[in-house]
């Protein structure tokens, strides 16, 4: 299967100046062949996005050294559906259709996804045809039929301090028979804002695609632009990028572990994790001048920190390392808590493999993939760290992935902070043209950013969040669980609404 996919790809026409992975323009047979091969398990879908005349597909052939991008020129406003053969592409195709007007020919799901009928126009990045506003609640949910089934609608405004989205539960008593998500409420038109703009402005938009992963997004964007312009950032910048990325990972994992336990009404761990998280953010603020380290990574390097910043971060690590280990022991020693997390919200390995789900969702179900190790980039390419993988696939496994990752991140941080290279942390960008693509490992999974730079400006860029391939699995995780366990399952995934809705 993977050989056939590799052969299909080799038949395409290579596009010059796309770095570091190759990009091929393929015809209908090549595109459909790749889709079929993906559907048969020949590789991982990494992204699918549109522009005015093209649809692009990023994929990684099983066993191949580097991923690649396939591009199909849209001729008669449609393209052969990938989702028809490979379900993970379905929502991505619906989004392309809503934004650009390219119809996925042969797709089994033609419902609008991001377009709720509220923009006053159709295909805002394509033909921009005016349209009447629709009732936002009008949406054909998939039916769940049977005696005693009833529906529970939740959202878009949720009960907690969280992002908006709609969940439609079909339940039989307490048991969830089907969950269907409806997202797109926080669609801000990011693909549009990343079209024909300068690099600085685009950097600020990319840093705000998903606030909790701002470092990972800026990191991927900076690397993609640097690939396009063939710039190498200075060594100090590379290490500082890694430092920020790991601080972001620790802060988010701490918040998640606490919140998951809180959803099982175990507020003690939540309280302690909240304090740890606050210590981490305060240290980040002192070191980098922003609690979430937003806009600190820019194409060309990083906005440098004072010389004493490394010391402050080390002190923070000393402060939280031991108390955190104690909280981990508490989690491990509390059967009443594990009664809620173990065997709850199980996702099968087959599903995470098909969806190529990254982050804790994939690694808790046995998918041994981490961008930092498997598609290595500076400063991880020569760093030593373990990638924790669990196989139970339940809420508990997703908690343990986070716990072990925090420990690994602390080791990485200690190593880098003790060996911070001196020198400049930023080089000037130069005018130039080219295309670049990069993937970084955010706390919740791999983030992909693709850019086309023309004359030193961003002609077009696209970002794909890890959540695209995790949201659908949440629907599978909650099946046959009780409604009361949904907050636990949802929090253990912690998918981004904003990163997904774009």
């Amino acid at each position, binding site marked *: 299967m993977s050989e056939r996919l590799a052969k299909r790809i080799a038949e395409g026409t290579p596009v010059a100046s796309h770095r570091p992975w190759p990009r091929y323009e393929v015809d209908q047979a090549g595109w459909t062949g790749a889709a079929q091969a993906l559907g048969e398990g020949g590789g991982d879908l990494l992204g699918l996005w549109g522009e005015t005349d093209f649809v692009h597909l990023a994929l990684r052939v099983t066993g191949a050294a580097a991923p690649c991008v396939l591009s199909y020129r849209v001729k008669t406003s449609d393209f052969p559906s990938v989702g028809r053969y490979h379900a993970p592409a379905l929502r991505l195709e619906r989004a392309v259709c809503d934004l650009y007007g390219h119809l996925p020919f042969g797709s089994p799901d033609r419902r609008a996804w991001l377009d709720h009928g509220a923009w006053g126009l159709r295909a805002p990045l394509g033909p921009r045809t005016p349209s009447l506003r629709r009732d*936002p609640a009008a949406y054909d949910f998939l039916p769940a039929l049977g005696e005693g089934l009833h529906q529970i609608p939740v959202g878009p405004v949720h009960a907690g301090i*969280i992002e908006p989205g709609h969940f439609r539960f079909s339940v039989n008593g307490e048991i969830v028979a089907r969950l269907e998500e409806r997202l797109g409420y*926080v669609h801000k038109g990011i693909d549009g804002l990343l079209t024909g703009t300068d690099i600085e*402005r685009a950097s600020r938009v990319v840093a705000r695609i998903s606030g909790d992963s701002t470092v990972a997004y800026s990191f991927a964007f900076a690397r993609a632009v640097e690939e396009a312009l063939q710039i190498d950032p200075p060594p100090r910048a590379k290490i500082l990028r890694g430092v920020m990325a790991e601080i972001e990972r620790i802060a988010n994992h701490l*918040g998640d572990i606490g919140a998951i336990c809180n959803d099982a009404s175990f507020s003690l761990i939540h309280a302690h994790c909240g304090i740890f998280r606050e210590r981490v953010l305060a240290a980040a603020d002192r070191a980098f001048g922003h609690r979430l380290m937003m806009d600190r990574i820019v194409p060309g390097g990083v906005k440098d920190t004072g010389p004493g910043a490394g010391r402050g971060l080390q002190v923070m690590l000393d402060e939280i390392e031991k108390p955190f280990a104690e909280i981990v022991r508490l989690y491990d020693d509390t059967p009443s808590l594990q009664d809620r997390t173990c065997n709850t919200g199980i996702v099968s390995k087959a599903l995470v493999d098909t969806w190529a789900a990254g982050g804790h969702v994939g690694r808790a179900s046995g998918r041994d993939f981490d961008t930092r190790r498997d598609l290595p980039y500076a400063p991880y390419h020569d760093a030593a760290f373990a990638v924790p993988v669990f196989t139970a696939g339940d809420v508990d496994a997703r908690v343990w992935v986070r716990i072990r990752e925090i420990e690994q991140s602390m080791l990485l941080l200690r190593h880098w902070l003790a060996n911070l290279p001196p020198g400049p942390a930023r080089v000037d960008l130069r005018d130039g043209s080219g295309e670049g693509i990069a993937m970084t490992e955010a706390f919740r999974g791999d983030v992909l950013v693709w850019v086309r730079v023309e004359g030193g400006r961003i002609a077009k860029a696209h970002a794909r969040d890890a959540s695209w391939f995790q949201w659908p699995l949440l629907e599978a995780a909650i099946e046959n669980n009780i409604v009361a366990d949904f907050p636990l399952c949802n929090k253990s995934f912690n998918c981004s609404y*904003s990163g997904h809705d774009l």
Partner: protein
Amino acid sequence: MRTLLLRSLFARAVTVAAPRPDAPPPPGEDAILTELGKALEVRARRLFGRSITIREVDAGSCNGCELEIHALNNAVYDVERFGIKFAASPRHADVLLVTGPVTHNMWVALERTYAATPDPKWVVAVGDCAAGCGVFADSYATVGSVEKVVPVDLVIKGCPPKPIDLVKGLLELMDRATAKPAAKPVAQA
């Protein structure tokens, strides 16, 4: 767990010290929080008896603002000790904290949430997006600021605002609300 609980029992609270009128506040950033907290508490009590209840509405934020609003509830800021708490329903809320540039897809939901909040009510727009100066303002998919959809009583800027700025902002809201408590018209049923 028992040792942990026992130790917690005798440990000093990580929360900044409770304000005492006769003692000078401790130095540093924590001192500001203590002072703010005291002032906030007095005003909240005058207006609402002992508490105000907040309903948070994300109307298109990148979730950065949500992270910092979340922090208000942690043991370090712990706004609940001042009588400020977050509610799960707008029906129970006095204040709506709204974040984001208001996407067109969230417009109706925000309007309905506002309509579901009983009077008297206040709206606080949190963050640069909600204030109308964020990076998402020029898009086909966004309205641009919260005040274009519902009347806004206070704006707290920042991208995202720090938790301490959020506490400051709530204090300012109290000031305004005390100045003209009956000025707000009753919304049509």
